């Protein structure tokens, strides 16, 4: 199986891309030989040789290569690199837990009809997931600001919400998949010799499901990434935001700055300035797009390999 997968170029490209981005994101200070605090410090005005102010923040990519700075003068390039690991890992963990929980629930009784779930699913078809997630996350943020929850606690709760809203449709997917497998003749054959349910699930159903699980996992990661980007635009940040006081003491401006450094936060905090500094939005968005593309390549690669084995 692994050998066959290794022959799929798309899969290799996708996996290499994601893993190298992760490695780079974890070790970029060592690889680029820069201090993290130095790289992520706020830049201020730009002076010419004579010490005159020639420009002010934010700087465009042509002024501060490669990606320019954000609204407060942080170099976007380093932020993107540093944020990659949070973004990808959050998506990974949420997608993973969504799948584990829903497979677990499904296996309790694959023949069950959960009317409650059907209700939720038929409702979520008409109301976009982003809005549902927004409602939950928003309430959560209000609540946590009222209770003064710690950042870690908030991140934990936010992840729970993001996991939870993905589960009802997944249970319905897995119910369909597992029923399909249970209807196969060789499963009947195994039940016919007196096998226990747990044995059949462990020995036959899960191995049969494994490829589909990987595919669904990758699709879930894509969905979570898109959801994160959408939520970022709606100014919902993972880990919440801290309010920064900007400007001179006489003329303060309050600004929310996301605490965790993931990409959606970068998009969200500057989204209102889209026309003034489009690169701050477009560059992280492109990063989302490229990561999603890499995941799609992985999916394509696995599908090709499955099709090839089926042809044999």
């Amino acid at each position: 199986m692994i050998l066959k997968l290794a022959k799929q170029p798309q899969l290799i490209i996708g996996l290499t891309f994601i893993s190298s981005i992760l490695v780079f994101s974890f070790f970029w200070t060592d690889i680029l030989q820069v201090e993290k605090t130095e790289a992520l410090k706020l830049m201020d005005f730009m002076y010419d040789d004579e010490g005159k102010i020639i420009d002010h923040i934010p700087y465009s990519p042509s002024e501060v290569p490669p990606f320019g700075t954000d609204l407060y003068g942080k170099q976007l390039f380093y932020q993107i690199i540093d944020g990659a690991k949070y973004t990808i890992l959050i998506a990974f963990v949420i997608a993973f837990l969504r799948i584990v929980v829903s497979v677990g629930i499904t296996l309790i009784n694959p023949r069950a009809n959960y009317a409650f779930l059907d209700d939720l699913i038929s409702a979520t078809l008409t109301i976009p997931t982003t809005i549902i997630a927004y409602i939950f996350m928003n309430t959560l943020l209000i609540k946590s600001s009222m209770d003064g929850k710690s950042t870690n606690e908030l991140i934990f709760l936010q992840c729970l919400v993001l996991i939870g809203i993905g589960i009802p449709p997944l249970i319905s997917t897995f119910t369909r998949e597992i029923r399909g497998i249970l209807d196969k003749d060789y499963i009947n054959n195994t039940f016919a010799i007196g096998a226990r349910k747990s044995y059949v699930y462990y020995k036959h159903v899960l191995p049969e499901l494994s490829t589909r699980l990987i595919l669904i996992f990758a699709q879930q990661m894509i969905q979570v990434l898109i959801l994160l980007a959408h939520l970022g635009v709606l100014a919902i940040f993972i880990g919440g935001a801290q309010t920064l006081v900007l400007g001179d003491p006489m003329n303060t401006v309050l600004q929310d700055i996301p605490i965790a450094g993931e990409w959606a936060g970068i998009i969200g905090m500057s989204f209102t300035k889209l026309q003034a500094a489009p690169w701050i939005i477009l560059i992280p968005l492109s990063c989302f797009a490229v990561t999603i593309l890499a995941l799609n390549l992985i999916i394509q690669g696995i599908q090709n390999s499955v099709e090839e084995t089926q042809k044999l």
Partner: protein
Amino acid sequence: MDNLLIKAQNLSKYFTDSSGVHKAVDGVSLNIHKGETLGIVGESGSGKTTLGRTIMRLYQPNHGQIWFEGKEITGLKDSKLRPYQKDIQMIFQNPYDSLSPRMTVGDILEEPLYIQKMGTKSERTEKAMKMLEKVGLPKTSYKKRIHEFSGGQRQRIGIARALIVEPKFVIADEPVSALDVSVQAQVLNLLKDLQTDMNLTCLFISHDLSVVHYMSDRVAVMYLGHLIEMAPKEELYHNPIHPYTQSLLSSIPVPDPERRRHQKEPVILPPKPLYPPQLVHVGNNHYVSADMIQIKDFEIENQQRVISNNK
């Protein structure tokens, strides 16, 4: 009768889907004696496969009871059913689907022994090897996977898997319909040999009347969930009473150009049987489904037939 192995009484299995209730098996009663083969023949949609699976207890019947060796097994829970499942085995129609593509032949053969907790690991391996030899496959098959075999070989593996736990009763559900004619003969011969060899009782399900005739001692005809005629095979093939059975028999192409029988209109029965599914004994162990008026006619006819046979 004490040599009764399987007794099914008034067995029914209904399926419900969006279009309503579909009565796949409706009020079927039959007895199978030790050592005999009962053939079930019927066209697509007659419920023959469902009947097999219900007797096997893969499906829970909606009505009726099943006895195995005099003990009722209809309502038994999974754990109580397990010892009987060792004695009742099934050979499936399509060896491509009924064997796991992920396991080696060795694992496939040993799995029933493992589940039934029979023997140690090495004993199981030994038994699997013996079984491979019995069904005429080389020992090297043990480590191979299903996709490396031809259709006939796969069905041999399916047979080996069913028989490895030494069952008393085997349900063979269209075991050769997916195979080519020449391979079909080999598999049928193998089944017949193993049956005598292991003293098996068999329920043989097929749409092919010739195959059923070759394999069985008694034959039952199914139509839309009902048994409509049941008799010892020679009796049934020579004296079919029910018009549907007659039409089935006259439709078999005879592989002999000297005996061509062209342009005989086959009888197509109405989609719902007109009479209640009740089998009536008409002599010679011959049962026909009929309503009250027809029964009298059958009895008269039968007497005449018996007389003419005696002459």
